[in-house]
């Protein structure tokens, strides 16, 4: 029942309607907004309190000390990093003249990635940024802070960060929203050091899309480079999947899906947006179930599709209730319950499953299963509190 005529009609009408409303936004307005954004972010960070002030003072002090420091000086970090592992490509000794220190070569991006991947095979780069002293925006007085958002880190429990900095002053890198403790994954700070410093943070609880920021208190011509790598725990499985139990045919209605703890009583998932055999229900947002399921860390959680019907694709996550006052439900994913499975053709011969198991992690979770079937798909939700 592919109705090309109405599809073409719809395309034409939508384009005409969109074209009838001109866009008046200009590049100048956009740049103004960007400056405002950065200014607000910088002010927000500056207001965070004494820590920033102390960092500034330490940074200026470190800048002075850096003039005569030994190149082998290590960087103090928290959580604790490994020792510097990579020498810069230039080994010229710094001098008291800042301009002479500006252009000390930093490790290349490839060298930083190689340093970070050592001992972490399979980790992938999610953020890479560098700032050449000659490209620093604006005019900063020596010792002034400069905050750069270099990317966003996806949900994971394991990051490896490699950073190098050339010039006078102090740097800090951080991952996470400083205003939201649950999103603060880690940070490190110390005097600018052109030798790569590799830090590792793991076992963190962070929501998705946490910013990675580099915060420098430096000579305006300092240069730095950072790479952020994460474990590939959330990469979709492209190799297909055999079902735990042979698949049974689906029925006339969207399959029910239930969750059980250690093989005990099962609780049916509450259904959000769904579509099945030509009909669809559109929820305003995510569903935050009122019924709470209790479990203990280490318990086996099982999600099971009724009647052994098989899903052909799935994305199941532990998430946090991030619903704002008066707003429709919003769940922010934190961990994958099982590896995500994509299946563009909805082909059960390629990927099929009717049972999904995960060891419970402590937390107050909204478990969200987005299941695709050859006949449709549905969003299912459970509220599970897992005690440590």
């Amino acid at each position, binding site marked *: *029942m*592919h*109705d090309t005529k*109405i*599809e073409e*009609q*719809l*395309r034409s*009408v*939508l*384009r005409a*309607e*969109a*074209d009838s*409303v001109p*866009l*008046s*936004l*200009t*590049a100048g*307005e*956009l*740049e103004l*907004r*960007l400056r405002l*954004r950065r200014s607000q972010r910088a002010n927000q960070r500056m207001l965070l309190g004494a820590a920033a002030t102390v960092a500034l003072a330490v940074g200026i002090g470190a800048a002075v000390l850096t003039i005569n420091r030994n190149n082998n000086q290590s960087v103090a970090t928290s959580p604790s990093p490994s020792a510097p592992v990579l020498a810069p490509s230039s080994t010229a000794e710094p001098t008291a003249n800042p301009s002479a220190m500006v252009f000390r070569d930093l490790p290349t991006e490839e060298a930083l990635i190689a340093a970070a991947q050592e001992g972490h095979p399979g980790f992938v780069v*999610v*953020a*890479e*940024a560098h700032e050449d002293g000659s490209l620093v925006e604006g005019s900063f007085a020596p010792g002034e802070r400069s905050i750069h*958002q270099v*990317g*966003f880190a996806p949900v994971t429990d394991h990051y490896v960060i490699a950073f190098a900095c050339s010039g006078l002053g102090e740097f800090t890198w951080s991952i996470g929203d400083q205003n939201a403790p649950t999103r603060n994954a880690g940070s490190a700070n110390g005097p600018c050091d052109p030798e790569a410093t590799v830090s590792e943070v793991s076992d963190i609880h962070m929501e998705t899309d946490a910013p990675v920021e580099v915060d420098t208190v430096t000579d305006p011509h300092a240069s730095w480079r950072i790479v952020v790598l994460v474990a590939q725990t959330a990469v979709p499985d492209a190799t297909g999947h055999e079902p735990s139990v042979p698949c049974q045919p689906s029925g006339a209605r969207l399959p029910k899906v239930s969750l059980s703890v250690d093989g005990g009583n099962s609780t049916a998932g509450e259904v959000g*947006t*769904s*579509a*099945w*055999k*030509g*009909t*669809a229900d*559109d*929820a*305003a*947002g995510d569903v935050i179930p009122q019924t709470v399921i209790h479990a203990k860390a280490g318990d086996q959680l099982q999600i099971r599709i009724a009647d052994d019907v098989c899903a052909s*694709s799935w994305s199941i996550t532990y998430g946090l209730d991030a619903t*704002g006052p008066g*707003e*429709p439900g919003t769940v922010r994913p934190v961990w994958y319950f099982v590896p995500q499975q994509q299946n*563009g053709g*909805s082909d059960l011969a390629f990927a099929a499953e009717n049972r999904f198991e995960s060891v419970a992690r402590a937390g107050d979770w909204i478990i969200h299963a987005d*299941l*695709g*079937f*050859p*006949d*449709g*798909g*549905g*969003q299912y939700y459970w509220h599970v509190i897992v005690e440590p």
Partner: protein
Amino acid sequence: MTVEALRRRRPEALADLLAMYGKEIHGVAYLILRDKSDAEDVVAETLLTAFERAGDLRDEKAFRTWLLRIATNYALGIRRGTARIVRLHVVPEIGGGDPSRASTDRVALLDGVAELPEQMRAAVVLRYYADLSVEDVAAALGKSPNTIKAQLQTALDRLRQSLADTVGASAPEARHA
């Protein structure tokens, strides 16, 4: 403009982004929100986010889809944030006399789109205005491709019905599917 230029945050990248993608993002946002001012906000926030987060993008070929996903999320966020339910009934843009058949159909379709649930409307806009594939629409909306396929089919059924209701027996071709 290349993604690499964006990652390097060259000053001209913002203007280039606006020139290349502003109109399309504006169209997507406007068709979802039906508010010109909000749609311009979505364009600005989308392009600034892209400017600042280009490092996130792993597959440069997916840049346009990535932009449209950001824009759609902003647009749906605006709707959620203001908790508005605005159903615009489009008035034919012709002066006097009976509206033409084409104009009547246009009004019926736009009315029908405006009355779709917001996620379904977003799916329709991304599929039929932005010409994204079903898989890209699914990725943009965080749903499975099957969910999107079913939503689009349902949306087309409803729009077909809107056309039929409007033109009555004069639109037999709108019912054949």
